[in-house]
């Protein structure tokens, strides 16, 4: 065991764990059932672009949608079958709205194709190729943030990564999918850690696991001794919510406080969830794209609790039905944990790369939403905030609509939405809901501002164009007018020339006339002999 000194982040909470309900049974494979609905956007960034057509037959692991841009991820077929639709379908989102999805009808054959070459000896492969593989395999952060892993791996230019932090804290109550994964596939997780270290050139790999998971820690230790890699260190950390938040976990493990403006990669840390590490292992060593994930089914409203490995795109209702359905008194279905998850409007939504837990609560477990009372400024929210914000101040900002102050002065965007402030508030004020509202409101204003700037640009461009067209028309008219005038002037000079000529002709004519007249006059003076002779000739005839 290491002599690592652990640190304690400010604030935090010890909520009831509820882990034992679902972590006792091994991961079960979900049976294919019904249609698979694969949203094009199961990650942060641009939605994938479909590369298949309706009616096309696809095989397992075949590419269905390619990544669109740098911050994006591709999606692959979880089984073989036919594409029956590419259309908007309801997705798991607090709004209950629809999003574009590829709908796959499984044919039951589950015919696979080899998507990529397996690279069991990943140490011989260049890190850049491995990153490309992670990208092509559609691996995203499986802890719930679904940020494309390859983007994180690209890191910051000039800042080397020294430590890979594998996050196995799983601090939210109820959720046990990472716990079961670490117990059953510890080797995959640690091998994924080795691949990640190789990719970024890190010299250390810390695996942080909350000490409420002794079996997982034991399994990881066993796997680590098998790998015999001195760079890997398994660390049991105290169970405090939210120790699984990236910066909090890094602080607990190393004591490095990463400031608000910075990302962990800028300080040389690369944080990945243990499930992401396992997905990296499968992508690199087995050449498999990410098409399945482990989902925890739990809560007092669920007949049978446990963990299931499901093909992505499977509908929540199908999985729940397969697992034994709800209890009769189910009242609420939550995607994610009780702290950061959200209530689903319907269970006919697909499970995506982000779906770590389906929590069904029976009526007696649904927290009552008493009417919020006024803030009494007890300061409990500020004491328990793990990011050391002033939630009560942010609440005033959000209530007053002073979003600028919330953003600039009270660091709203540092809020990790862990929900502790709302839990500890004695006045039952839904603080975190105000913060979520304020965040989306700020984004909306940002969009409106951009749109206004764009409209202004277009308006000005249009005015400039109209102005230019007017000027051009005027210039054209002016040039036409000038041309006409020039023609006229030319005409005049031409007529002047004609006059001259006419005059010359006239003068010539005059001269001829004058000469003729002169000739005639001289002829009259001396009677012409010719005339007489001519007369004589006529007489002779």
């Amino acid at each position, binding site marked *: 065991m290491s002599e690592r000194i652990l640190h304690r982040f400010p604030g935090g909470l010890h909520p009831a764990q509820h882990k034992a309900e679902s972590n006792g049974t091994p991961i079960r494979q979900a049976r294919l059932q019904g249609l698979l609905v694969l949203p094009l*956007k199961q990650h942060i960034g641009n939605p994938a672009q479909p590369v298949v057509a309706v009616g096309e037959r696809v095989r397992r692991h075949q590419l269905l949608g390619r990544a669109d841009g740098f911050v994006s991820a591709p999606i692959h077929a979880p089984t073989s079958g036919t594409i029956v639709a590419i259309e908007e379908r309801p*997705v798991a*989102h*607090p*709004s209950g*709205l*629809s*999003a574009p999805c590829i709908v796959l009808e499984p044919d039951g054959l589950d015919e696979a194709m080899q998507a990529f070459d397996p690279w069991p000896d990943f140490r011989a492969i260049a890190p850049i190729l491995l990153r490309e593989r992670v990208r092509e395999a559609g691996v995203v952060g499986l802890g719930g943030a679904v940020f494309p892993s390859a983007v994180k791996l690209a890191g910051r230019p000039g800042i080397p990564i020294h430590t890979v932090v594998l996050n196995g804290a799983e601090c939210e109550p109820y959720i046990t999918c990472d716990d079961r994964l670490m117990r059953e596939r510890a080797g995959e997780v640690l091998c994924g850690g080795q691949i990640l270290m190789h990719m970024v050139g890190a010299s250390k790999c810390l695996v942080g696991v909350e000490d409420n998971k002794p079996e997982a820690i034991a399994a990881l230790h066993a796997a680590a001794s098998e790998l015999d890699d001195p760079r890997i260190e398994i660390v049991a950390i105290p169970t405090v919510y939210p120790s699984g938040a990236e910066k909090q976990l890094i602080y607990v493990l190393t004591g490095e406080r990463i400031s608000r403006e910075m990302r962990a990669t800028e300080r040389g840390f690369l944080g990945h969830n243990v499930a992401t590490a396992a997905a990296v292992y499968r992508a690199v060593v087995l050449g498999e794209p990410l098409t399945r994930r482990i989902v925890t089914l739990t809560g007092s409203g669920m007949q049978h609790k446990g963990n299931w490995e499901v093909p992505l795109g499977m509908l929540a*209702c199908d999985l*729940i*039905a397969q697992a034994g*359905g*709800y*209890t*009769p008194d*189910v*009242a*609420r*279905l939550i995607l994610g944990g009780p702290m950061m998850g959200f*209530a*689903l*409007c*319907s*269970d*006919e939504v697909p499970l995506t790369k982000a779906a770590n837990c389906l929590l069904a609560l029976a009526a007696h477990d*649904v927290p009552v*939403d008493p*009417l*919020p009372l006024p803030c009494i400024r007890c300061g409990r929210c500020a004491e328990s905030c793990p990011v050391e914000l002033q939630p009560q101040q942010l609440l005033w900002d959000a*209530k007053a*609509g002073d979003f600028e102050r919330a953003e600039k002065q009270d660091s709203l965007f540092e809020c990790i939405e862990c929900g502790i402030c709302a839990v500890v508030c004695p006045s039952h004020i*839904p603080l975190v*809901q*105000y913060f*979520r*509202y304020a*965040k*989306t*409101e700020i*984004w*909306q*204003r940002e*969009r*409106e501002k951009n*749109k*206004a*700037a*764009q*409209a*202004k640009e*277009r*308006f000005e*461009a*249009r005015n400039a164009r109209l102005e230019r067209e007017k000027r051009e028309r005027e210039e054209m008219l002016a040039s036409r007018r000038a041309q006409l005038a020039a023609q006229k002037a030319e005409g005049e000079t031409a007529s002047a020339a004609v006059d001259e000529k006419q005059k010359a002709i006239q003068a010539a004519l005059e001269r001829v006339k004058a000469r003729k007249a002169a000739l005639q006059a001289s002829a009259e003076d001396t009677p012409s002999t010719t005339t007489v002779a001519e007369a004589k000739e006529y007489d002779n005839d």
Partner: protein
Amino acid sequence: MLTAILVFTLLALVLGALLGYAGQAFRVEGDPLADKIDALLPQTQCGQCGYPGCRPYAEAIAEGRADINRCPPGGEATIKALADLLGVEPKPLDAEVGEEKPKRVAWIDEQLCIGCTLCIQACPVDAIVGAPKLMHTVIVEECTGCELCVAPCPVDCIHMVPLKIELDHWRWPNPEQRREIAEGASSVHVPSKPLEQHV
């Protein structure tokens, strides 16, 4: 005495010259206040304020000729921002110019469009594409919802439709309003029918 007068005269001359030079050298082109006001307006160029565009309205506000509550597309948020900028009290939107409506965009019924190009000429942001005697259509991303194209259409084929809410643009509801809803109906969160089907 004389020295004092001389010194002060000299000072006055030098400082005056300096000020005069500074006034010329650091002259600000245009009206910076109007620019700031213009930046807060929604740039729909709809003319509902009674001025031919956002810029003229901004100039009118800057010169004190117009009130800050005459922009229906901007609504309450714009009035608040203008009040903050100008240091005056926000006031409700002038009923004379219309009311704040949810964001809408123009939509052309392409079956009815005769291709007269009148709407293209009316659009202040070139958000309508088409050619004479050919169908026209609206570029939704560019449409500001100013409604200026609706009136010129001779066949009334342009309608204002509410903007579709996209997942990425979805906003969390204001908990204040949620509370009002909750007071009406006790169970907002309980999943509706589809959940019960599988029970």
